[in-house]
């Protein structure tokens, strides 16, 4: 005897969902603004409905929204890389399709300095430092001043006269974040630099890696060997790529468990 055919799980779930109230027309899909993209967070999100009287429900944790989800009452902020998903339900109508927007928070050099200062409790330099674009009264000045010695652009450009600005509002690049992390960890005794010869071997197939100055090759090869960064699928380091907060915190979280500070290492 044939057993009754089971309904697909998705349909089961669908019927179990309160939004499947018996109704007439489908409510228009709500509109989430701004559109998906890279933003300087926190970014204010606004959701509007196309039908008067409709209620809007949304999630920010990547789960599917239901009428049990948070009810939209006004603009709200996203402060981290988020996906906003929303539905609308007008009285007497069916629930709308899901509107979905993804936000990636731009991770600036200033944000990076604050994060590194928080994670590593970097000491201030012996002498106060002047940054034309970060005055001492700026809330992030102490973090910028502490992290600046580790953000050494000379590694990438050994013949350069460097700009005095810190550029706190510019996105942190993969290259600068990597250099800072490696330098901090090296000074804490938590990583050992690869030699130039070892670095050359490791970067032999990396089109942008093998063209770097010798010291930069040591930095990036060391970072790759310690899984601080990984080569892209095409073997590029992709130095100019903009790191996100997620990229950096993910590495820091992992390093925190992998790398135990040496005894007596300064914090």
């Amino acid at each position, binding site marked *: 005897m044939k057993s009754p055919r089971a309904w697909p799980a998705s349909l089961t779930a669908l019927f179990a969902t309160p939004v499947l109230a018996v109704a007439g027309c489908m409510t228009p899909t709500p509109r989430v603004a701004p559109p998906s993209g890279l933003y300087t967070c926190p970014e204010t999100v606004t959701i509007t409905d196309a039908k008067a009287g409709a209620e809007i429900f949304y999630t920010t944790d990547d789960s599917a929204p239901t009428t049990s989800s948070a009810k939209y009452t006004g603009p709200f902020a996203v402060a981290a890389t988020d996906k906003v998903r929303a539905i609308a339900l007008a009285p007497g109508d069916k629930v709308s399709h899901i509107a979905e927007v993804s936000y990636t928070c731009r991770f600036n050099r200033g944000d990076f300095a604050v994060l590194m200062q928080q994670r590593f409790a970097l*000491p201030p*330099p*012996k*002498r*106060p*430092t*002047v*940054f*034309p*674009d970060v005055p001492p009264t700026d809330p992030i000045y102490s973090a910028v001043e502490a992290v*600046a*010695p580790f953000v*050494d*652009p*000379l*590694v*990438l*450009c*050994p*013949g*350069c*006269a*460097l*700009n*005095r*600005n*810190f*550029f706190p509002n*510019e996105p942190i*690049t993969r*290259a600068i974040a990597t250099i800072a992390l490696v*330098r901090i960890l*090296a*000074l*804490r*005794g938590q*990583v*050992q*630099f690869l030699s*130039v010869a070892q670095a050359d071997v490791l970067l032999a197939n990396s089109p*942008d890696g093998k*063209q770097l*100055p*010798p*010291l930069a090759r*040591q*930095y990036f090869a060391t970072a790759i060997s310690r899984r601080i960064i990984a080569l892209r699928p095409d073997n590029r380091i992709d*130095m*100019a790529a903009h790191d996100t907060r997620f990229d950096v915190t993910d590495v820091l979280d992992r390093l925190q468990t992998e790398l135990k500070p*040496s005894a*007596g*290492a*300064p914090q």
Partner: protein
Amino acid sequence: MSIHSRRSALAANHRSRTFAMSFISRALFMMALLLVLLCGAISAGAQTCDPSSSCDVEDNAGPIMQGPTTVFLIFWLPSGFHFDSSTTNGDTNYQNLMTRFFNDVSASSYLNTLAQYPGTCGSNIPTAQSCLGAIIAKPLPVDTSAYTQFSSSSVGTANQPLQDSDIQSEVQKLVTQNGITPGINTEFFVFTGAGVQECISAGVCTTDFFCAYHSNAATAAGNSVLYAYMPQVNSISGCGTGNGHSPNNQTAADQEIPVMSHEFFESMSDPLIGGSANNTAWISNDPTSQSAPGEIGDNCDLETGSVQSNGSNVTLNGNPYLVQTIWSNDDDACVLSFTPPIPGPSIEYTIVTGGDDLRGDSSAASALESPAGSVFQNVTLKTQSQAGWDNNSTHVRVFQLNQPQPPPTPSALGNVAVTLTSHDSGLETPDNWNMQSLGMKLRNPNGSIICTSSSSGNPLARLTQQAPTAIFATPPCAPPPSPTAFVSVTINIITGNDNARKDTELWATFSGEPALCLKPSNNADSDGTCNNGGSAKDQNGQQDWGNGNNSTQTFTLATPEALDGGTVSILMIEHNSGFETDDNWDIQGITITGTDSGGNSTVLLNMSVPLNGNNCIARLKGAPNPSSVTYNLSASAPATSNLANPTFGPTPPGSCPQ
């Protein structure tokens, strides 16, 4: 050096000293802290190096720029762009000030800072200038070609910046156009207009990274092409000195010079940076050092030190300039001068401190012994007032080496002693100092290395109050004799197929010497070099140097000069009557012989081409055309001496259009 051991550099307060934190000392500490807060130096955003860490640059054995050095200035300024639009002649004034700086920096105490960063720099040296010869500035005609000439996508904006390859192409274009032979003694400074953006690599741009850079490329023939890219820094936020001084009342140009001086000094001491690791000269080696891989300009990025009321911090050849300070190993600081120069053989110390630092209030000295054990020279490695040497930091010092007395020379160097002197305050225990390694290099006056010595251990030596001196044996080294000094020169010049007229005046100028009169003019007053006048003649009784003329004259030098490694410039000065066209003069050959006080002669220059139609080795014309030519003097290669300023085409030797 283990990374682990570098930890203390991060924790600057982890000193080895015992510091009794009594009430008094706390009070003193608070007072000192207050002083630092009130008076303490403030470093620039680019992180001026803390001298107690590894700020010192080290010798990596790569070449340095050889004196004399020719700087070609390339002003790349398409229509619509300006270096300085504040005045009608702003662009011209800007170009002139850049050129004047390079001419004025020659033989200055500012340039002497480079004397402590020696390297092989020629077969011999000009007297009293160490390895540094004259700096010869050669502005090339302004290039008005569009910034798109090499790549249609590179227009110099933030969205479409020029690329380093564009700068290299511009240099190569002008090298070809002007028949220049690049080399280790030649650098090209490329200037672009205000607002132009450029990237040296992906994400490394003027927009948010650098203010200028120096680099190098290679010609197809394998010659190094040294160049520096100079954006108009006054148009880039974060690239000015921050003080807005303008000693020449040309803000754009005056603010360009600190960055330009940064690049110029770095080029001189580390010209092949960016090349293979083997070519690196003077840089900070420790990969974790605060300034790594910094050169001598990086430790003092955009710092000017004390500025006078007229906005200058140095006076060069009588002219005021605002320049960047330069890192001095010997001073452990950013400086604007270094005296005296190091004209003779030198000894270079590279000392790495181990796990016990050398305190700031301690001093260290070294005694050099002859093989017989007698001390013939004492040098100070660190004064009591200089910053301490942190654990695991590297420090480099260079001193002139006084040859052991009495003669005969050459003599060998015996042991070297290093002594710690502790100057304890009442609250301190005596200082102890661990030396992890000691490297020494002895150099000839021309910078070539006589011998090296390297010792290391863990520690190599521990200096204490009970045993403050460590003695190190050195390999037998023999400082060379002093360079030959010439008291006179004999100059032979063959004129080609275009004469030097009776009314034309000819000079020869050797580096370090006043000009010599080769031929006076019959149509000018005496001028301090030539006794001109209607009946004036050269040593051979000639007024006119006709086609094919062969002139040999001997001159006594004002002071004995090494000459070898120096230059000679031949200058033509017109004194036309109102009815004459410009004079033009072809040089077919030139031979210069130096004679020392013992009567020994040495050929220093011997260049010529057989006469074949209108060819020559140099054609001098009336201004504004090139009216002078400069040759290097070399006892070891007098026939292949490079032409130092072939600013006229076509490339000599070759055809010289009449």
